[in-house]
């Protein structure tokens, strides 16, 4: 069964450093998402991406964040200058328009900012 994959599974970085989190959505999916989940809290929407551009973003997704689909398969989330409060699980998800709103989530990347 096709699945969303994410790398790395765990990323440790120093405050102020740039990180890039990578996702490979399911190949025939058209809508892509990033979410974050701070330990013990709910899943929070960050951004949606369709047709090579951002569809919607939350107030969390400020100028420090960016997304890209550089090669038609990868979908990346970049955090330019990490803060301690960026420590969280980051989940990528994708949707096929054949299965309305059934989002397929990746296993997540645990980001730890020291």
């Amino acid at each position, binding site marked *: 069964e096709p699945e969303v994959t994410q790398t790395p599974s765990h990323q440790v970085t120093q405050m102020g450093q740039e990180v890039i989190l990578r996702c490979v959505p399911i190949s025939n999916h058209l809508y892509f998402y990033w979410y974050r989940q701070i330990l013990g809290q*709910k899943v929070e929407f960050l951004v949606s991406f369709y047709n090579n551009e951002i569809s919607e973003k939350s107030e969390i997704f400020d100028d420090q964040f960016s997304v890209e689909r550089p090669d038609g398969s990868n979908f990346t989330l970049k955090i330019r200058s990490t803060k301690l409060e960026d420590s969280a*699980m980051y*989940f990528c998800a994708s949707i096929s328009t054949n299965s*309305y*709103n059934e989002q397929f989530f990746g296993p*997540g990347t645990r980001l730890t900012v020291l």
Partner: protein
Amino acid sequence: LAKTTQPISMDSYEGQEVNITCSHNNIATNDYITWYQQFPSQGPRFIIQGYKTKVTNEVASLFIPADRKSSTLSLPRVSLSDTAVYYCLVGDFYNFNKFYFGSGTKLNVKP
């Protein structure tokens, strides 16, 4: 996006049927209801989705009354492995741009 309200936690025992209710008073005509399950340190996983009345699949049933202001996820004969957080989402059938996860219900299944 319609706001959802769920109980923070529920306890159950193995073999019991569990019903988790979600309130969504401001649901709009185009909105449908989706439930996800999340285990610790994993991404959410789709369980079931519906618009009205009753939907059943191999893992759960979803009951939606006529006014659609609430919905109930029913898990038959739960096991220890059903211990997880369950999220109810309400979203526009034609708008894939944003999804709002509420606080979810932590289901704890005891032996």
